[in-house]
C-alpha cells in the first residue's frame, strides 16, 4: 500500500519495483525470440525512432589506462547505429542474396542479470523518471552450416522509454562484448 508521501517521493535512480522487473524481463525475452526467429521487422518496432545503438570495440590496456579500454564515441565500433541504419541493414536480409545468412544461422539469445532502475533525468537529458535504465547480460550462441559455433557474451545498458501507450521502447543501447579480437568471422546478428 502506497501512501501519498511515497507517491510524491522522486523515483529517480531508484530500483524499480517487482512488477516493473517482470515487465522488463518479459520484454527482453520477447525481443530475444524475435531475433532468434529472424523477425527483424518486428524487432525494429521495439526500437524508438531516436534510437542510439552502440557496440564499441574493447582493447587490452595497462591497468592504469584501463579507463580507456572501451573505445570512445567516434572510435572503432562493431555497431554505431540509428533506427534508420538498422532498418537499412535489415533490408539486406530481404534481398535473398545475403549469403552470410543464407542458409540462416541458428541463434539463441539468452538474457539474464536484469537490473532495472528508474532513470535519473539529471543523468539522461530528455528522459523522465518513468523511463528505465536497465543493465542486463547476454549470451548469444550461433551455430552455422555444419559445425560453425560462436559464443558472444557481454553486457548491455539500455534506456527503455515508457511510451504514451504504456509499451516499452528501446531508446538507448550500449553493448559491451567481452572480447578483444572478435572470435567470429562476422557479426550477422543483433544484441
Amino acid at each position: 500500500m502506497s501512501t501519498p508521501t511515497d507517491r510524491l517521493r522522486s523515483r529517480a535512480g531508484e530500483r524499480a519495483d517487482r512488477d516493473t522487473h517482470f515487465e522488463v524481463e518479459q520484454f527482453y525475452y520477447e525481443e530475444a525470440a524475435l531475433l532468434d526467429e529472424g523477425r527483424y521487422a518486428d524487432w525494429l518496432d521495439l526500437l524508438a525512432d531516436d534510437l542510439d545503438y552502440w557496440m564499441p570495440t574493447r582493447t587490452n590496456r595497462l591497468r592504469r589506462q584501463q579507463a580507456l579500454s572501451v573505445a570512445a564515441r567516434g572510435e572503432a565500433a562493431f555497431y554505431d547505429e540509428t533506427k534508420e541504419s538498422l532498418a537499412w541493414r535489415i533490408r539486406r536480409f530481404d534481398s535473398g542474396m545475403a549469403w552470410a545468412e543464407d542458409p540462416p544461422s541458428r541463434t539463441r539469445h539468452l538474457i539474464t542479470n536484469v537490473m532495472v532502475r528508474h532513470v535519473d533525468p539529471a543523468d539522461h537529458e530528455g528522459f523522465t523518471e518513468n523511463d528505465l535504465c536497465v543493465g542486463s547480460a547476454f549470451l548469444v550462441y550461433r551455430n552455422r552450416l555444419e559445425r560453425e559455433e560462436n559464443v558472444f557474451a557481454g553486457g548491455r545498458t539500455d534506456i527503455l522509454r515508457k511510451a504514451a501507450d504504456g509499451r516499452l521502447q528501446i531508446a538507448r543501447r550500449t553493448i559491451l562484448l567481452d572480447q578483444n579480437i572478435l572470435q567470429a568471422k562476422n557479426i550477422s546478428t543483433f544484441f
Partner: protein
Amino acid sequence: MTSTNEPQGAATAAPRGALRRPADLARNLDVSGLVDTEGGLLDRVIFTDQELYRQELRRVFAPSWLFLAHTDQFHKPGDFFTTYMGEDPVIVTLDRDRRIRAYLNSCRHRGARLCRADFGQTRNFTCTYHGWSFNLDGSLVSVPNKDGYPDDFEEGKWGLVEVPHVETYRGLVFGTWNPQPVPLRESLGDMAWYMDAMLDHDDEGTVVVGGVHKWVLEGNWKLAAEQFATDWYHVNMSHASALMLLAPAGKKPRDEVVHRTGRQYSDANGNGAGFPVHPRNRFDARTVHEWTDYDALRERLGEARVEGPLTNGHATVFPNFSYLPVNGSVRVWHPKGPDKMEVWAWTVVDKSMPEEVREAQRLYNLRTFGPSGIFEQDDGENWSEVQAISQGFITNGVPLNYQMGLGSEREDGRHPGRTSELYSDAAGRAFYGRWRELMNTPAWHEESKA
C-alpha cells in the same frame, strides 16, 4: 620520411656461448609446380599445407615489407602499438628522438611476451616474468639480481631484437626483417601512384580513426590478400545484397554499377589494384561525396586517378596489406596457421576532413566493411567455406582457375605500369607469381648459414 635502424639483438653475437640449428630442421619445398602463371592454375595445397606455411613465414613474410601501423598512432615518445609481422609479435613505438622503431615483443631473457597491451603510452617495457626492463630504444636497462650473472654479462648485448628497417610511405609504417631490403618506396614502384589516390588528397595527409577492428577468419591469409589484389569479379554476386542496399529503395542496382568497366594494375612485386573507371563512380557516404573537391583533386592527382582508383576499387600491397580507397579501410591479414587468419582493419580519413565528414566516413566504413559490414560479412563466408572443404584429398588436388584476362596485361597509356581489364585475374597471377618466386628463393637468414 625514412629511418634506417642498425640491427641489434639477435643479429649481434653474444659474448658467451653459441647455438647452432641442424640444417634440416626447416625443409624447403620447391613450389614451381604449384603455381602456373602462364596457364592460370593454382594448386589448393598452398592454402592447406603446414610445411608450406612454415616456409612462407621464413621466405615470404620475413624478407618482405610488412605493414605495422599508421604514423598518427604515435604522437609522443613512448606511444606504442603491438602487432604482428607474420606470426612474430612486435612492439612499434616512438623513441625519445621521435623515431618510429619496432622490436620483437619477446623478452630476451626467457622469451615471455614483453608487452601485453594493445596500445598505450609508457616509459619503458618491463617483463612481468622476471623483471628485465627495456628502454624505448630497445636497450636493456634493468636486470634484477644482476650480480648473479657472470662478470662479462653485458646488458648492451641483450637489448630487444629490433626490426632492422622501418620506413613510412604517406603515413603508412612498414617494417622488414630483411637486413638489406630494397627501400620501401622503390619496392612499391608504380603501386605508389595508385596508393596516392587514397593517401595524397592534399598536403595534410591522413589520420586514423581511433581503434582497430580485429576479427578471426577460418581461412588462409592468401584468400583475402589475393581477393583484394585482383577480384572485382566477385562483387556483383557475393555482394549482391549490399549493392541492392546502395541502389535507390525498391530498385535493382543500376546497370552502370553491375556492368562496370575499369582497369586492374599488377606488377612483378605481387602488388595489385583494381578499379572501375567512371566519372561518377563513388560508392560512399553522401556527406563525404559532397565535401570532396573533385576539381582540386583533378588538379593534384590528374583525371585518370580521380575517375579510377580514387573513387572506388580494391588493392593489395604484397604480401598481406590491403585497402579500399573509397572507404579508407586499410587492413592486414595476419597469418595464423595455414587455415586461419586474423583481420586487423583501420579506418583512415583525410586530416583535412571536418568533424562531421570524418564521422560520416567512419560510419559508412563500419556499416559496409568490418565484421558487421554489409559487404564484409559475405566475404568472410566465402573464405571460410573455401577453406572448410579444402582438406579433402580429391578436393585438394583439383586446380583452381585464374585464367580470366590471360595475356590482357598491357601499358594502357593512362595508368602507370601494366593493367588488365577490371574483371581479370591478372593481379592474382602476379600475386602468386611473386609468392612462388620468394618461396623458391633462400632468404638472408638461410644464406648466412650456407
